[in-house]
């Protein structure tokens, strides 16, 4: 139980990573986070925003290369995960800009205008749209392990969050290299957009994908391993609500308050995902011991 109370971010988001690589990834994450804070302290806010938005996608891309998750079919698998996540993120960033009230209107009427559409509807719908890419991969037996679903969810979620943040904040690029602003709220905001929100999205997407893989790809004996949480009818709406609930905090909390709010949701998402990964690892161990097909086996035709 202690493990659930203290979820480990790197080993949960990157389950195929060997134990001796965890420290390196933790250092990389810490280095990236420190760089974002330094850039913000230097008031290079647009640069810090791009760096924050790309921090986790870069780390995920390195993980994919590091453990060769996609085997012999990296191009189309990457297209349907990282590529699709980026496209969906850009699309939802543009959509959010299109439906956003004007800046002037917000200063008069308050951020409550953001609550319904940008706080709840767009995050909830965006979450289900980003799942479409991994859903295509569900058909392929070459990616039949539960941990494949987890990886696809993590990858798509990271790309979606990064692309959306950059697209929505594109106007910031036109304000100059050092556009001005209070540093500390910027730091909280950058950490929220670069770490807090993406981690919830990645964790929720991975948990949702895991439920799909558990239902349609895992051995029958594993299908009930997570109880109701392993059923897509429960897991998918729950994951969508988790993302929407994390996002909506921004509309009524301060920059620092939203970051704290996101930490709580990160904890919940990673804890849920950790339970799922446990089943996936047991499944993988059983397959290895039985001499079954390994995850990097030769491609097979879609089932």
């Amino acid at each position, binding site marked *: 139980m*202690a*493990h659930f109370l203290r979820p480990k971010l790197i*080993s949960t988001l990157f*389950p*195929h*990573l*060997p134990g001796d690589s965890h420290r*390196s990834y933790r*250092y*990389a994450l810490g280095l990236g986070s420190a*760089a974002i804070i330094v*850039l913000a302290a230097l008031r*290079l806010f*647009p*640069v810090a*925003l791009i*760096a924050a938005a*790309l921090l986790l996608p*870069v*780390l995920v891309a*390195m993980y994919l*290369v590091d*453990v060769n998750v996609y085997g012999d079919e990296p191009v189309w698998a990457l297209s349907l995960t990282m590529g699709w996540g980026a496209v969906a993120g850009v699309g939802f*960033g543009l959509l*959010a800009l299109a439906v956003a009230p*004007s*800046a*002037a209107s*917000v200063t*008069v*009427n*308050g*951020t409550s205008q953001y609550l319904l559409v*940008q706080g709840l509807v767009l995050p909830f719908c965006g979450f289900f749209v980003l799942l479409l890419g991994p859903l295509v991969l569900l058909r392929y037996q070459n990616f039949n392990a539960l941990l494949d679903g987890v990886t696809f969810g993590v990858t798509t979620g990271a790309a979606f969050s990064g692309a*959306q*943040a950059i697209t*929505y*904040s594109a106007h*910031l*690029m*036109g*304000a*100059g*290299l050092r*556009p*001005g*602003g*209070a540093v500390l*709220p*910027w730091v909280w*905001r950058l950490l929220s957009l670069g770490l807090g929100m993406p981690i919830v999205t990645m964790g929720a997407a991975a948990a949702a994908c895991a439920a799909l893989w558990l239902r349609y790809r895992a051995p029958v004996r594993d299908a009930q391993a997570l109880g109701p949480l392993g059923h897509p009818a429960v897991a998918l709406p729950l994951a969508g609500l988790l993302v929407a609930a994390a996002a909506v905090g*921004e*509309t009524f909390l*301060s*920059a620092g308050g939203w970051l704290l709010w996101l930490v709580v949701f990160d904890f919940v998402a990673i804890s849920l995902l950790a339970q799922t990964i446990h089943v996936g*690892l047991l499944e*993988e*161990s059983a397959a290895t011991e039985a001499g079954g097909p*390994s995850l*990097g086996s030769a491609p097979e035709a879609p089932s």
Partner: protein
Amino acid sequence: MSILAERVARGSSGGGLGKWVVHIFGFIFLVVIGLSIVTNLLVGPVVVVPCTNGQPCGAPPTVPAVIRETAWRSSRYGFSLEYPASVVKVSQQTPSGVVLAIDVGGKSGVVTIQGFGSATTPAEAIGDQVGGLSGVSQLAGDTNPAHQLLGAGVGYVAGAGRIYVGDVTSPQGSQPISIASEAASDGRVTVSATVVGATSDSGYRSDLYAVADLVINSVRWQG
């Protein structure tokens, strides 16, 4: 002891980057930072030479013809103002002030004109009005010399002026805004005016600021 299964590497290729992970990540991240700096320099605004107070500083911006001037009067403080109803609409009003929504040439913003008692100094009025703006995050004074208000005042009475920058934020990201605020007092009443708009729609040569100037200059003091 963990109740979770031990995590296993994926095949023989797991962890291929080994100890180089941090180095490779650091290199990629530096490239990302470098590229974003270049991008910002390419798409960022051209550096503007600050104007000198009292000296010519280029042609004024063109604004729509001022027709159908509409008057508004503060029932509490007695000052009045006029605005071109073709591009300006009353958004909110109270006995002491009015919020006008400006939409000119596809650029939008708001100008808030607010009255205060004589005990409130122009600087205090600016602070009060800007502090009352909702939904603005990362608010700070704009220190760019080219953005400063020269000869700030309201209704042709000299006063104080300040420029701020901030962001309106949503769960998806941030959008920069510019805030220009000026205030003046005739000894009986202090009137402040604050203009808010997206940074891309603002600036001393923008239509938004030109229309806001018309409104602010139109203020007539009581009596």
